[in-house]
């Protein structure tokens, strides 16, 4: 009844492409009733996640814009602020996060290939790596707070080389904490989702016909990774 989609072309003979009167016989347990078939459901979910990612880009884009404007206004303070970040820790975190994207991608493959244990393992690894990232971030935050770099009334840091940069450094730290904080929040939400998906994967929910939840989880996770790829140079590496 429905125009064939890419999913149908990729999966000839899959349950979703059967005519409507066979639908009852092949009714997949995870097919939601307002969709005609799994193909439509898969496409709708994927498109939905792409649109969601688009608006996330605008969300982070707003603060990237503000960051850029202040960087142009206060280059020295921005440079000093970036020097206060430990780039080695940042690099470690970057590698951890890229690694977690790899395990996530493998999880998507595993889900589609119906490899239950492998998929679960990959999702667990993703969760562990993501948690490591957040843990390291927490450590960095703690160090900054000890150094008096948390903005606001607790900002006791003084830039001895040039005290006039202190205000600018505080402003940099506002952006540092807000940008990495929002990023970490997205990671924590992702971690929560991963716990749910680990449970579903272990239960054997996913297979060749129905793996789109893992795929869109992967899309979300890769997006959060890409945001970090931008944050790392902007906050740690600028001169």
């Amino acid at each position, binding site marked *: 009844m429905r125009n064939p989609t890419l999913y149908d072309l990729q999966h000839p003979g899959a349950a979703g492409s059967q005519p409507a009167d066979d639908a009852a016989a092949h009714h997949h347990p995870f097919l939601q009733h307002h969709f005609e078939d799994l193909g439509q459901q898969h496409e709708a979910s994927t498109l939905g996640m792409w649109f969601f990612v688009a608006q996330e880009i605008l969300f982070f884009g707003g603060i990237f814009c503000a960051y850029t404007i202040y960087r*142009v*206004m206060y280059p020295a303070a921005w440079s000093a602020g970036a020097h206060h970040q430990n780039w080695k820790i940042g690099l470690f975190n970057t590698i951890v996060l890229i690694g977690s994207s790899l395990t996530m991608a493998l999880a998507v493959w595993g889900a589609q290939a119906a490899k239950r244990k492998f998929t679960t393992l990959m999702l667990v690894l993703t969760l562990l790596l993501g948690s490591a990232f957040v843990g390291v971030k927490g450590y960095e935050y703690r160090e900054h707070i000890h150094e008096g770099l948390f903005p606001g009334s607790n900002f006791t840091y003084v830039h001895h080389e*040039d005290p*006039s940069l202190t205000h600018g450094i505080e402003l940099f730290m506002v952006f540092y904490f807000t940008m990495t904080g929002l990023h970490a929040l997205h990671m924590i939400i992702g971690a929560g989702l991963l716990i749910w998906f680990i449970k579903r994967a272990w239960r054997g929910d996913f297979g060749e016909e129905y793996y789109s939840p893992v795929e869109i989880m992967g899309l979300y996770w890769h997006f959060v990774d890409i945001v970090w790829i931008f944050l790392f140079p902007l906050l740690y590496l600028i001169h």
Partner: protein
Amino acid sequence: MMLADFPLFPESASSVAPYVDGLYLGLVAITGAVSLLIWVVIFYFAIKYRRRPDNELAQEQEPPAALEMTWIIIPTIIFIGIFIVGAWVFFRIQRVPSNSLEVYATGRQWMWKFQHPTGQREINMLHVPVNRPVKITMASEDVIHSLWFPAFRVKNDVLPNRYRTVWFQATKTGRFHIFCAEYCGTQHSGMIGWVEVMEATEYQRWLAGGSEGSLASQGEKLFQKYACNTCHTNDATGRGPVLAGLNGKTIALADGRSVVADDNYIRESILNPTAKVAAGFQPIMPTFQGQVSEEDLIRLLAYVKSMPASGAAGSQPAGVPVGELRARPSTTTGTEQ
């Protein structure tokens, strides 16, 4: 009730007002005509083609498709025309004549303070001569305000920590409203005043009526009080650059950039001196942020701007051109306007 109690149009009391009103009335005419046309047409169609038993369904008879293009192209042309005229009037509003009388204004919750170069200070009241351009340089002590003279058709927002200007040339004597036009808190609607436009002779009489000395001479006292003169001497021996003739000059900075020394630059150099250090000098000037009030800043600004160029060779640090006195539009991130 007098007709004056029911104004439909504000007084037109500035050189720019007729242009603004002309554009306004022109727009009223054009848009009024188009709106009236639409109203008449939809009511005419609604009546003429009202549903009756013999036209339960419409006859599908589309007007020619070329109609679509005409009512895309013609409005676009009209709108662009409105833009052009509007921009032209805007230039007249924004371009400050070079022979303007300077007045300084400070906005704060919830009053307007005006300072004249001759030293008079006024609160919520501004005396100006008729038929002379008046340029108001203004900043806010706290939140964003906006200085509006409806009778002159000009306004500009008044920002904290940045000088902006608004100018007008009054064409009529009389008393006209001043309103704050950017919401600023509890007494926003009380932050109002009057501008009193006077004939030239009356204005001179008003000016002579006592003050504490000109703004610049008040500034000179502050220059000594804050010990600025200990570093900013009149010759090249001082630890700070010579300030005579500074106003409007292009300055080379220590980090290689160059800026025009306008009002905002002078103000910034007092409050945040290490931001733009002049070439050949060390960043040792202390900041006066928090010590100098907005009004004192204006007095110091007036004094610095009043220092004549010394002209003596070697009195400027190397690399700084001497004597470019005409003010140029600001090229820094903040704008003069």
